[in-house]
């Protein structure tokens, strides 16, 4: 019994923010994370994964944060070598599937920050889904060049299984 608890504790510690899951209805938002935003007045970016455990697709239609005057979904598009960031109105979370916001793809842009996002802090982010409604998650702020959740002071990059 104590071995099981020890294993559980180790798994939790190894996973870092393994507990960073937020559920609402059929949706599970996993590991919301952001990059520290370095320069005052610049926007910040947040990433996360949404898993849909239900039978019907849902759509992420709005994002908001008390730290940002404006928040919007954006997508980085790489067309013939040119990088463009375009606003997107909604993102589908397929039934039985997942929506991943990650570097180089779709992301949350947080603009009009009163103060930069600092490494190590957590920031509230409210996601609005067409079916599931609103869910507020805690976004963990990592290093300016972080490539995934869990990259912050004192922690190296999380091992990648793929």
């Amino acid at each position: 019994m104590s071995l099981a608890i020890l294993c559980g504790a180790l798994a939790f510690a190894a996973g870092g923010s393994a507990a960073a899951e937020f559920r609402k209805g059929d949706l599970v938002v996993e590991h919301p994370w952001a990059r520290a935003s370095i320069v005052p007045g610049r926007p910040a970016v947040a990433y996360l994964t949404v898993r849909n455990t239900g039978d019907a697709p849902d759509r992420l239609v709005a994002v908001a944060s008390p730290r940002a005057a404006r928040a919007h979904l954006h997508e980085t598009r790489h067309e013939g070598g040119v990088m463009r960031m375009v606003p997107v109105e909604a993102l589908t979370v397929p039934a039985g599937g997942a929506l991943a916001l990650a570097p180089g793809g779709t992301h949350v842009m947080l603009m009009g920050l009163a103060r930069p996002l600092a490494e190590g802090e957590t920031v509230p982010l409210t996601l609005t889904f067409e079916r599931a409604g609103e869910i507020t998650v805690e976004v963990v702020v990592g290093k300016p060049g972080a490539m995934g959740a869990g990259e912050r002071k004192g922690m190296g990059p999380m091992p990648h299984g793929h």
Partner: protein
Amino acid sequence: MRLSKPVLFVLGVVLSVAVAWALVALVRDMGAGPGGRPAVVTTGTAEIGGPFTLTDHTGKRVTDKDFHGRFALVFFGFTYCPDVCPTELQTIARALDLLGEDAAKVTPVFITVDPARDDPETMARYVRAFHPRMVGLTGSPEEIAAAAKAYKVYYRAGKPSAPGANDYLVDHTSFIYLMGPDGAFRALYRAGTGPEALAAGIRAQIGAE
């Protein structure tokens, strides 16, 4: 255990198909076939690069010659860009880490395509978040345009969200350029190349010096 002839035959076919599949994939990844896109593109001619005069993040005026004597990894971006630019600058920083002692032979350089917002102080804050030796370069719009032209960099500022807002984004090509100690172009790497491939490319160039 002896395998019967039909089983051997089937195994032979499976093995041949597997080998053929691997060869096709390998050739495709080398860019030899349609749809193949190599991570590294090298050109035989020194069309990329050239003279520039810019202002570094300490406010000092520098030219391209100030970077001769070492390799340089050059990336054009802007500090208002929170997705692609930090990723590529982190790739550069991490590639230098992977080079170990050879990292001292390479200068990481970040040139802004948004000189209106990216002044030297802003560039200083930005580059030190990625690497202690990263140099940030800015200048007048004309000076930046000249540097971008030399590197065949396309960039275009978009519209702000509202009149008077200062939140426009800049579309831009996003290659990492490896320049030699003689200032000549050596190789370019697409965004998304990743630190390991970038370090391997640099190592090969250093080794060939």
